């Protein structure tokens, strides 16, 4: 019986895939399976994976006939997974040796639907710790209660899918699949749904995942049009949260996070001029779609700079080709 399935999507990561695979080897166990999903890479990644398949115990290789993005690749892996527990890893990140056995035993000990774990962020040799923004550790609690308060960074703001482990019953309840087709921020609607729908979770340290920052090919580094999918991602968060029985309590948090992310993107300065214009238009439309009262409350709770930026956005005239107001 497979105890743990690890879903690992790869897309054009020939420089890093070896490290990832080697670290999986240092985490292999006879009851673990590694589902390597090649999202139609165009570099040497497929050959590296081909070779790994024979060297990595428990490896299963699946190749996409066309590139579908991270969310779709993870879904493919989930559909092929047999494990009682599931987790994810990205094809350019790596693990401490023996991390998965420790992660699994934490999950079994705590017996909850899912765990969130701290991780290490690496920029070359400089490393920093990233913690789950949830202070109570090693204690199973209701994840819904961990979403709030609205004005504090909480567990839903720590969206990394690979920073955790998930029991199969979440898969059976269809809570683990990612929104199809989103090219970025796919884990935002995912983590929100998990926190709304799952029955128990816990945060633990472990510090076993090493997340590679500053990778040129990594999406978070590129100011291209795919980044704008964050708007669709957050629209989905707001939509789904609005249907929740406790929408009145939870929505303020969703709206506030949405606003903060918009503001962050507006000031990041990394977008090409054309994309930046599109970002502005889409953001203005998004702000206007948000429920008025909630938006006002969110803006009032933010610092002056960010609030002013978003208010200006809201005053922007509606259509895409308008003259200046």
């Amino acid at each position, binding site marked *: 019986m497979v105890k743990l399935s690890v879903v690992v999507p790869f897309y054009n990561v020939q420089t890093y895939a070896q490290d990832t695979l080697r670290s999986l080897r*240092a985490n292999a166990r006879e009851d673990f399976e590694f589902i390597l999903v090649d999202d139609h890479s165009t570099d040497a990644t497929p050959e590296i994976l081909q070779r790994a398949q024979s060297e990595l115990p428990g490896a299963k290789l699946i190749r996409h006939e066309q590139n579908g993005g991270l969310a779709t690749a993870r879904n493919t892996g989930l559909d092929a997974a047999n494990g009682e527990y599931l987790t994810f890893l990205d094809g350019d990140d790596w693990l*401490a040796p023996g991390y998965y056995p420790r992660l699994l035993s934490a999950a079994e000990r705590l017996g909850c639907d899912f765990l969130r774990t701290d991780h290490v962020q690496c920029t070359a040799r400089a490393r920093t710790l990233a913690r789950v923004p949830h202070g109570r550790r090693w204690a199973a609690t209701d994840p819904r209660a961990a979403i709030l308060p609205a004005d504090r960074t909480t567990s839903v703001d720590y969206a990394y899918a690979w920073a955790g482990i998930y029991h199969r019953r979440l898969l059976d309840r269809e809570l683990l699949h990612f929104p199809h087709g989103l090219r970025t921020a796919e884990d935002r609607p995912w983590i929100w749904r998990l926190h709304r729908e799952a029955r128990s979770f816990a945060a633990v340290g472990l510090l076993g995942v090493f997340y590679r920052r500053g990778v040129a090919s990594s999406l978070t580094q590129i100011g291209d049009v795919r980044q704008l999918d964050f708007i669709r991602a957050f629209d989905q968060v707001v939509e789904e949260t609005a249907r929740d029985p406790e929408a009145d309590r939870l929505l303020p948090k969703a709206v506030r996070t949405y606003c903060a992310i918009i503001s962050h993107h507006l000031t990041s300065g990394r977008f090409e001029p054309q994309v930046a214009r599109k970002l502005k238009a889409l953001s203005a439309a998004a702000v206007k779609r948000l429920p008025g009262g909630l938006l006002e409350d969110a803006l009032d709770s933010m610092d002056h700079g960010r609030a002013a930026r978003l208010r200006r956005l809201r005053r922007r005239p509606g259509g895409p080709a308008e003259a200046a107001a």
Partner: protein
Amino acid sequence: MGARTRIFLASTLYGAATLAAAVDGGHFPAPYGSAGDGAGGDSARGERSSGERAGGERAGGERRLLVVSNNAANPETTPAPDAMPGFAALRGRFDRVLSWNDAIRPFHPGGWSPRADDVPMWERYLRLLWGLDAPGDGTDVELVVESLQVEPALALARMFPEAPIDVYADGLMSYGPTRNKLDPLVGSRVRRLLHPELLPGLDPLLLTEFGVPGEIVSSSAVRGVLAELSAHAPASVAGAPSRAALLLGQYLSALDILTADEEERLHLRMLRGAAELGHRSVVFKPHPVAPARYAGALEKEAGELGVELRVLTEPVLAEVLYERLRPALVVGCFSTALLTASAYYGLPVARTGTELLLERVTPYQNSNRVPVTIVDALLPDVSDPAAVRTWSPPDRERVRAELAGLLRAVGFCMQPQILPGLRPEAEAYLTRHFDGRTRRYFKRRRLTALGLPGAVPRQLAFVPRNRTVRRVARRARALKRAALG
């Protein structure tokens, strides 16, 4: 006062082997009686012969801890030096082997150092972790480290702020200046620089700003340890052909000195040179921490040249290959292993790519400049078969006459602020020897900035700074590019 502890820090198997050789060579004699030796030991140290060293048991309660640091880009996925085949042969010299990566987990040894004000806590932490006595007289711990100017050696030196320090060097960098200004409270604790004699007749420049004397670890001690190591070579080595040409891969793209493509081309040139010299059997040894990449281009070229190529994917020391395979030729770029091949094993050697690297190693004070300069100045180019065939290692006199002055002049130009006392020597060297042959080792701009012979003549000194001249030069270059496509 409790027992004395000597902490050895090594980040490569070769470094650990150098330490083992220094132990075998009697450079760390056990103290007589108890711990009183630390205070007035300087004069006595040199007098003890290797016969007095303790074998299995250390007299006087001295303990030897080997702290192993894995400095690979991803230590989590790369075997540490003490997991390499052959380490077992060294293990007996030390009472305990500890992991630096474990001590500072999850941080990277190359990217972490304690904050100055936190040092007292860190010292307490390490003493607790490693079971040392509480700090009373802080000199109960002595450190033996490599590359003191960078982490992790610097971090360890700072965490034991009262410990005397010995530095050991295992490579050609010891013939160059210290790469940056060292904290005087670290540098002034250094008592000696232990180094193998790769170039008889040449004195190390490293740490001379603190008046640190060099101490030679005898070649016989080093060779003895390497012979022990080679008994534990990985299985793939046993199957490799002997008497082949051995190509030493480097990992220069990681240092941003070359691009990955250029690095590949460099390896191809080594192969072509070896083939031209008539070698039909070639062994390629990739750099141990280079990312596992395909030697595809090399294999293809070997096929076209009709050369049988064996790629050693398991990490193994070049010296182990020298012992086991007795290669007929060793080709490299500027690896220290080129010099050990020649100095310890009398093997024919050849270089490639050093000319490009003299340009690429930037800024001028980049410490790789020293090995590049040494190899370029001494070794024959692999694409010059006649030179490779007739080459013989330089003797003590030739090293003194040709290399010593050059390296001290280059050393001064690299670190004029750290070694200001070398100016007269640099001036004298450049006055006599700056010509078409030695020009490549210096940069005109640097000589000008330092006011040294070989600089742009004073009448023209305004040129590099003059806006109009620069603009004209830029335009001329642009036109040339456009014309040549």
